[in-house]
């Protein structure tokens, strides 16, 4: 059984004269562009010729999404933080489409620690900004008199990044291990039946069985983790305000 788990590939590389890589764009970034394109197209399609009284199903769907996000922000963060709604919705749509894109054959965007780290850093910046805006710079700096607060401050983005990355990447690894095991099982069954493995190389057991795991790891876990990410973002921002 040979299980090879690989990180994101280098898609575009800028080479120097002697052939060493100066700068390269990874698979996650390219898939991220596709995700951004999907979100952009969705936005454009959903908000095309809006009417005051909705006539099309499209506009009803768009209004439903906006209303759901606004309700969520209002119940979790309160009325005066409604300005954060676009950020929350954008991060949520990026993460959920970036995770679910693995169902159509791409590598999940969030199975790369750079992507989740960047998202967590954005949230961390926003939390710090909220703290300084509502409590003042002096009070924010004064909280570091207790050095334990530095650790808890650093732990916030680290744990957010690792949680999203670990869940998606762990699911990917388990799926790959299952694929390897099923491939070994197929070839040993072929061997037992006395068939030549070079001719019957098709892995019969890899059909269908991984789909059951994919429902959990790709669909359920991906949706739950993106929901958890934005819920934690909202909770931390609300805590930062107080």
């Amino acid at each position: 059984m040979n299980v090879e788990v690989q990180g994101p590939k280098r898609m575009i590389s800028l080479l120097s004269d002697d052939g060493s890589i100066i700068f390269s764009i990874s698979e996650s970034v390219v898939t991220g562009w596709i995700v951004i394109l999907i979100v952009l197209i969705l936005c454009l399609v959903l908000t095309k010729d809006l009417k005051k009284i909705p006539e099309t199903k499209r506009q009803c769907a768009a209004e439903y999404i906006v209303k759901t996000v606004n309700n969520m922000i209002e119940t979790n963060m309160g009325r005066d933080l409604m300005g954060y709604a676009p950020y929350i919705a954008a991060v949520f749509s990026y993460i959920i489409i970036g995770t679910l894109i693995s169902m159509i054959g791409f590598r999940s965007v969030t199975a790369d620690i750079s992507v989740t780290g960047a998202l967590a850093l954005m949230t961390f910046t926003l939390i710090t900004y909220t703290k300084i805006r509502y409590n003042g710079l002096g009070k924010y700096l004064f909280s570091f008199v207790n050095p334990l607060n530095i650790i808890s401050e650093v732990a916030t983005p680290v744990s957010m990044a690792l949680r999203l990355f670990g869940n998606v990447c762990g699911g990917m690894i388990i799926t790959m291990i299952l694929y390897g095991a099923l491939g070994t099982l197929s070839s040993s069954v072929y061997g037992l039946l006395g068939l030549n493995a070079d001719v019957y190389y098709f892995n019969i057991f890899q059909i269908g069985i991984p789909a059951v795991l994919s429902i959990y790891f790709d669909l359920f876990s991906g949706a739950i983790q993106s929901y958890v990410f934005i819920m934690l973002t909202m909770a931390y921002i609300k805590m930062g305000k107080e």
Partner: protein
Amino acid sequence: MNEALLNAQATVLAGQAIGAGLAMIAGIGPGIGEGYAVGKAIETIGRQPEIKGTATSTMFIGCAVAETTGIYGLFVAIVLLWMNPFLKHLTGTVG
């Protein structure tokens, strides 16, 4: 490649595999914690069925936070298994 280096590399690889397995012991804690949280949430829903939505979403947040330590263990195991962090210290010293 001489024999001493080969032996040393085999020892390092074996240690990495054992360490990755031991790191996943961290999965016990989140398992117990999440089971407890879900049990309590079901108790709450059984007592007050009208707050099912709130209880479920709060439970998922709690589960995700409880999962963090297990994810740290998984991260350590991934690093040990596929990134071979200790092999590169070996080449200079042995052989």
